[in-house]
């Protein structure tokens, strides 16, 4: 029970940090989106997570999977466009994987389910200059770090964030094949994809929050079981 409470607190802290970071990054995302999209990604994501923070208040005592599901539903109802269903739908779909709470295994499963829904719905694959270019390396790195390298969740998350960062840089020279940017053809070259950039921001915020709310002793005690950081990468 105590563990669940601790996880729940960590999840709330992470979500609140994501909202704060997206609010700060609003001009940056809008600038990226005005180069190759329709200039509303910053305000959409900011408004979306503002609503998330309001809505999850009702979930203070809920199970982790229900809290995460509520995040997805709030994004679907508030963000609109393509980003709403891509972020919200994928989170909603993947939330089932957390029905037993946060464990290294469940968070890996969350990441895989998130990526699966994202590629299925958006029809994009790596190299199309979309958020998939950030999510795919993050999920694969996280899974490998947990399953093959036996790393604690927080370290695995840090590696996943690095992978996502490289993924965002990887979108710069690409010509977009999916989404609105694809209609710009060669003019899309030389710009970061806004969806990949917002994905990275979210992962960074979750990692940061995990680092704040866990100390070394927590990690040692809990090396094989659920810790906060895991939850996030998937978002």
């Amino acid at each position, binding site marked *: 029970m105590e563990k669940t409470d601790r996880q729940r607190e960590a999840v709330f802290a992470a979500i609140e940090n994501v909202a704060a970071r997206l609010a700060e990054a609003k001009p940056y995302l809008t600038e990226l989106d005005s180069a190759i999209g329709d200039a509303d990604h910053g305000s959409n994501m900011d408004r979306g997570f503002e609503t998330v923070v309001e809505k999850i208040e009702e979930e203070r005592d809920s199970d982790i999977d229900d809290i995460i599901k509520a995040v997805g539903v709030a994004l679907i109802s508030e963000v*609109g*466009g393509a980003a*709403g*269903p891509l972020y919200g*739908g994928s989170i909603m779909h993947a939330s089932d994987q957390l029905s037993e709470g946060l464990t290294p295994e469940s968070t890996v499963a969350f990441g895989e389910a998130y990526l699966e829904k994202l590629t299925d719905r958006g029809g994009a694959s790596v190299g199309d200059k979309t958020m998939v270019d950030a999510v795919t390396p993050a999920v694969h790195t996280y899974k490998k770090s947990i399953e093959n390298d036996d790393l604690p969740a927080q370290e695995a998350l840090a590696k996943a964030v690095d992978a996502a960062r490289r993924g965002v840089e990887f979108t710069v020279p690409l010509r977009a094949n999916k*989404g*609105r940017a694809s209609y710009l053809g060669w003019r899309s070259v030389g710009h970061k994809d806004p969806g990949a950039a917002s994905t990275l921001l979210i992962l960074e915020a979750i990692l940061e929050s995990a680092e704040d709310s866990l100390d070394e002793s927590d990690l040692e005690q809990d090396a094989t079981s659920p810790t906060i950081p895991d939850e996030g990468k998937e978002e």
Partner: protein
Amino acid sequence: MKKLLNDPSDVVDEMVDGIVAAYPNRTRRLDDTKVVVRDDAPVDGKVGVVSGGGSGHEPTHAGFVGEGMLDGAAAGEVFTSPTGDELSEMIQACDGGAGVLCVVKNYEGDVMNFDTAAEMAEIEGVDMVEQVVVNDDVAVEDSTYTSGRRGVQGTIFVHKCAGALAERGAAIEEVTRVAEKVVDNVGSMGMALTSCVTPDKGEPTFDIDDDEIEIGIGIHGEPGVERTEIMEADTIAERLTTEVLDDVQPSGEVAVMVNGMGGTPLSELFVVNRRVQELLEDEGLEMWNTWVGDYMTSLDMEGCSVTVLDLDDELKDLLSAPTDAPGFKTK
């Protein structure tokens, strides 16, 4: 630009109230949404047929809500897809236990939000949610808003045929099959004399000179295939009709829609229609029925589109079935 508006950000909300007020015995609004449904929805045992998309295309979509056509229509913000949760509420409200068919125009935001809505509705207990994506715009392969062809005026024939079959009690597989048959046999192409003006922006979406027109334009002001000097109505009718016929390749009887983009007088649409009919006759095609008027508009854009549907007996029967949807007259 002068507009008949209050606060531009309230336009969709106030419009939906106005629609329901105009047809109080036939429609109602779902609480806290911009969804209009048949007053008797859900009809027990009947497949629900629903649609939706951005506002600014009136009478699409709410104008086609009625017996024999749509059970529900969701209005997004101007030129913006409705959100997944509102679409999900519409699906649930129109499920009479036989499933719901969503008629979706091919724009990325619309397709993804309908996908999400179907998933949410299934979680809430709607057994079968099917989706048909309309992509009848023959002008361009890809547009500002979508990979693949855009969905435009042909959507209304899909609403009509699927709605008529659902009204007769057909199963969802059948209703979906007929909707797909219409999609496979319909093509449209539009043109603009002027840009639309969105309420928020208050100025034209794109610049076009007084002596220019744009062929192949989309209903959100997406670029067309050709910017050219202004031409006579007959030349425009020929260009649009020829390209649509090349794509649809009808062989016998056809239905036609000459649609206004919102700012063009009916007199001009009839002038266009006159030439369209001559061209069909020249091609040896038999005109079964024609609809001329504003069906899927682009706010106040001046211009028109031509839609041709290749018919068989089943589609003729369904197109002529009765409906009380205010935006569509059976003839």
